[in-house]
């Protein structure tokens, strides 16, 4: 659990993070979203003390971080930096092994861990281990950056626009991968992004920042349905609201009995994709299948009711 209590950062009389308090539960993803210069990176860096707070406290599992030596704290917290920050003079394997080496792990254990992580991120160890960072594509560099942050098995992972440099398709894949990995290893993640869609699809909770202040910290459905301020509302965009609500749901939670014809929709697809498919194919209902077996149908009416403002 990460607790930020009245965190403030002042640079030369300018308050760039203003009295921010929030709590992130263990094993959850909190996304921080806001315009450029709103203080997202500064807030994130105060968690691993790359930035010293002007006032306020940070507790990790109840322990105040200022009581731990900075370098020790940082070795316990994974950090995937804005623009990956790989060491250009070190191979992929040595990059990923950085923190384990600082922690004094045995060579064999580091090597095994590096290969395990490369596998996890879909990079064939034999092929990528000894490459230099500049011999990778942008997407691969990004993945190595995240793998490096996870190397020593930290309970907390800080990510600063980790997918910023990726094209939309790779980006969606990277987000899915991150969710899958997070579910598997249960890391608490704090992720900074510019992109509201990313914040919504990844976050258990979303923190909306503007000019150093935390405007709202709430689950995606709440942020969409009950934006706390006009700024939050503008960030979500009123025309996209119904579709953002739909995107939060899975088809499998909206299945009903009854007949339907045409191609089937996967139960794990999100409701927005299912609605788009029904609109596009002109159908009122479509069969749903899970693992190839039919499990019922999904109707336009059911989907539409999910797109309405919750009461």
């Amino acid at each position, binding site marked *: 659990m990460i607790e930020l209590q009245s965190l403030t950062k002042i640079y030369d009389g300018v308050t760039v993070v203003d009295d921010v308090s929030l709590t992130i539960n263990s094993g959850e993803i909190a996304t921080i979203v806001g315009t450029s210069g709103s203080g997202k990176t500064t807030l994130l860096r105060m968690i691993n003390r*790359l930035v010293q707070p002007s006032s306020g406290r940070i507790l990790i599992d109840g322990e105040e971080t200022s009581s731990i030596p900075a370098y*020790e704290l940082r070795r316990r917290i994974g950090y995937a930096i*804005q623009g990956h920050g*790989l*060491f*250009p003079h070190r191979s992929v394997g040595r990059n990923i092994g950085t923190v384990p080496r600082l922690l004094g792990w045995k060579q064999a254990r580091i090597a095994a861990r590096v290969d395990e992580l490369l596998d996890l991120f879909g990079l064939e160890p034999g092929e990528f281990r000894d490459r230099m960072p500049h011999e990778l594509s942008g997407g691969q560099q990004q993945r190595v950056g995240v793998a490096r942050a996870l190397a020593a098995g930290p309970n907390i992972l800080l990510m600063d626009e980790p997918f910023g440099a990726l094209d939309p398709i790779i980006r969606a894949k990277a987000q899915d991968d991150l969710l899958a990995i997070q579910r598997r290893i249960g890391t608490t993640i704090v992720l900074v992004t510019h992109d509201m869609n990313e914040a919504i699809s990844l976050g258990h909770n979303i923190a909306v920042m503007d000019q150093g202040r935390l405007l709202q910290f709430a689950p995606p459905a709440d942020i969409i349905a009950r934006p706390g301020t006009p700024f939050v509302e503008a960030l979500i965009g009123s025309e996209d609201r119904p579709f953002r609500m739909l995107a939060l749901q899975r088809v499998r939670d909206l299945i009903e009995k009854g007949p339907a014809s045409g191609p089937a929709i996967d139960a794990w697809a999100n409701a927005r994709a299912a609605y788009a498919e029904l609109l596009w194919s002109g159908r009122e209902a479509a069969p749903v299948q899970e693992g190839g077996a039919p499990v019922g149908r999904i109707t336009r009416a059911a989907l539409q009711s999910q797109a309405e403002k919750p009461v």
Partner: protein
Amino acid sequence: MSMAILIRLAMLALLAVFLVQPEVFAPFFALFTTRGAPPIYVQSDLLSLALNHMAIVVTAVLGATVIAVGLAVLVTRPNWSEFLPLSRALANIGQTFPPIAVLALAVPAMGFGNGPTLVALFLYGLLPIFENTMTGLSNLPPTVQEAARGMGMSDRQRLWQVELPLAMPVILGGVRLSTVIAISTATIGSTVAARTLGEVIIAGLLSNNIAFILQGGLVVGAIAVLVHDGFVALERRMSRRAGQG
């Protein structure tokens, strides 16, 4: 093998043969002598002169590297930045004070021999290494340094594992400059009895023998060019490995 490497190898071979068996080249250098003057300098062994010449250069440059890199590392640490102007001034004085004047001042204190030349080359070599190290250490990619801090490296670990390796090609560029300058400047050491290849040139001056001057100059020049190219190749390899080439 590329043409460039072949030319270097040929040059190295010629140099080696000349240092070991200079008489082989007598017919060539005879072209520059008059009235039956000796075409080849035989008063001392050329190889041992060259080795001593290089020993002085290497010692002086090594010393300058340790001091200049050390100073640059020191003044790029946050708490020491106020010493930057002073360090820069020291390095500048070392460079601007003429080596021949250093020799003249050092002889009374140290006597004739290798010592004064060593001091002169050391002082003369500080500035390029200092300035290049400063450039290298102050132009590191900020995200990389940030990542190093974020991973939990201590200041010392960052210096040795990230900052110095990344700045290394630029630092080496400074060492190369100092070395090449020292190789040619070392010749004046012979005026105060340091055993360098300058001895051949001075002998030529004293006896009005162009062949001596030429062979002294050519040997020093060839060594400087080869050392220069060796450094450049090393720097390139390092930058290319780090994706900067």
